[in-house]
């Protein structure tokens, strides 16, 4: 099963993402913005990694959402292919309108806007708890209830939308993840950016397009931890250091959904 990891000018998390995709047993390949769109159509799924596509000019994700390769991604999403956007990739997906998918294509109804702290960049380990949309999402069906550790690392991660749209997002089951603590409790203290409803990730109605702000690929292995207890315990033990960590379950779920033939 082939997965295109899309690279736009300014994308910066493609290597970690590709490594996580390959570790999940998938045939991941980097696809740069200069690729022939016809050659990109053959992939079975698409991942938009984090970074600053087109330097976030105009606003985060705005220019990349109109890239010609996004025509292929949109077409693939509409035919049922899996699409995952992480951080900047999530911002791009909201700008395309694929997520939450409540309006026309490229007429966004929501945004991951500048953080509520005045737009300052934050990098912090968070937990994202899977919520309601699991039943209909091939991505999320394989996940349990347990909060998943990831790294929030962004200046624009605050979900914003009109009051009516937020109601649609909530009642329509578009919320895929909310920020929580390790025990699964959501409170203002654990939301790193002031995101509405504590949202860390959104999914479309069909369940095949997922946009998550925190980075699971940055918590894919124990060695990526910053001096946490798991890493300290793994010191001098290569196997333990290379053991999968919490965020890897996102890619396992992605692979499971692909192998189940989700289209």
């Amino acid at each position, binding site marked *: 099963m082939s997965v295109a990891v899309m690279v736009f000018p300014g994308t910066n998390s493609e290597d970690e993402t590709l490594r996580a995709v390959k570790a999940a047993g998938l045939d991941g390949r980097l696809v740069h913005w200069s690729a022939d769109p016809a050659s990109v159509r053959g992939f079975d799924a698409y991942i938009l990694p984090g970074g600053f596509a087109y330097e976030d000019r*105009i*606003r985060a994700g705005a*220019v990349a959402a109109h890239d010609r390769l996004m025509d292929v991604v949109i077409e693939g999403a509409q035919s049922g292919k899996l699409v995952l956007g992480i951080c900047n990739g999530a911002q791009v997906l909201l*700008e395309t309108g694929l997520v939450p998918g409540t309006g026309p294509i490229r007429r*966004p109804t929501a*945004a991951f806007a*500048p953080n509520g702290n005045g737009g300052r960049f934050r990098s912090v380990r968070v937990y994202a708890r899977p919520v309601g949309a699991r039943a209909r999402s091939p991505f999320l069906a394989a996940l349990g209830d347990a909060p998943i550790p990831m790294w929030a690392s962004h200046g624009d991660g605050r979900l914003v939308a009109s009051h009516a749209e937020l109601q649609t997002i909530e009642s329509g089951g578009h919320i895929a993840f909310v920020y929580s603590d390790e025990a699964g409790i959501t409170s203002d203290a654990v939301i790193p950016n002031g995101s509405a409803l504590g949202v860390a990730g959104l999914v479309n109605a069909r369940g095949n397009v997922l946009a998550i702000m925190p980075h699971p690929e940055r918590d894919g292995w124990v060695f990526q931890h910053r001096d946490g207890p798991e890493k300290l315990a793994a010191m001098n033990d290569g196997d333990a250091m290379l053991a999968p960590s919490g965020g890897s379950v996102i890619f396992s779920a992605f692979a499971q959904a692909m192998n189940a033939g989700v289209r």
Partner: protein
Amino acid sequence: MIARFAVSLTIPDNTAYTTLVALRHLGIDLERIERAELYEFDGDFDAAKLEATIRTIETIFNPNKHRMELRSLAEPLPGEVWIDERDEPVATTTRVTVAGRMLEGVRSLRRATAWRLYSGGKTADSATVGRAVETLLCNPAFQRALYDPRTKTVASHA
């Protein structure tokens, strides 16, 4: 009183160029785009002193690459649209600080980006500005666009 300053680049503006190319790809026929950051200060202050202070805050104004002008009009120029965040936090205390500097007498500060579009040797008409706003410049989920649909075009001086 209200003082409004527009800060723009004296060096090539890559963001404006990217925007120009993107809008052309979207079928909007434009010659060029100018971009400026707008800072609107409200309060009881000496405008000349405020301007002098702002000129020393490099996160707003870097003399090596910026020009700054006082905008007397409270509305966009012909061919121009102002984009701001609907719920951008506005400082409303009696002490407004920017980059750690207190701005004496300033009670609130709002920011916006001004895009000025040119087409056919003059400023773009409001229909063209409107299409640019709808297709790319503004995400209505969190941004507002202010331009005058009745505005007349004026000749380009570039």
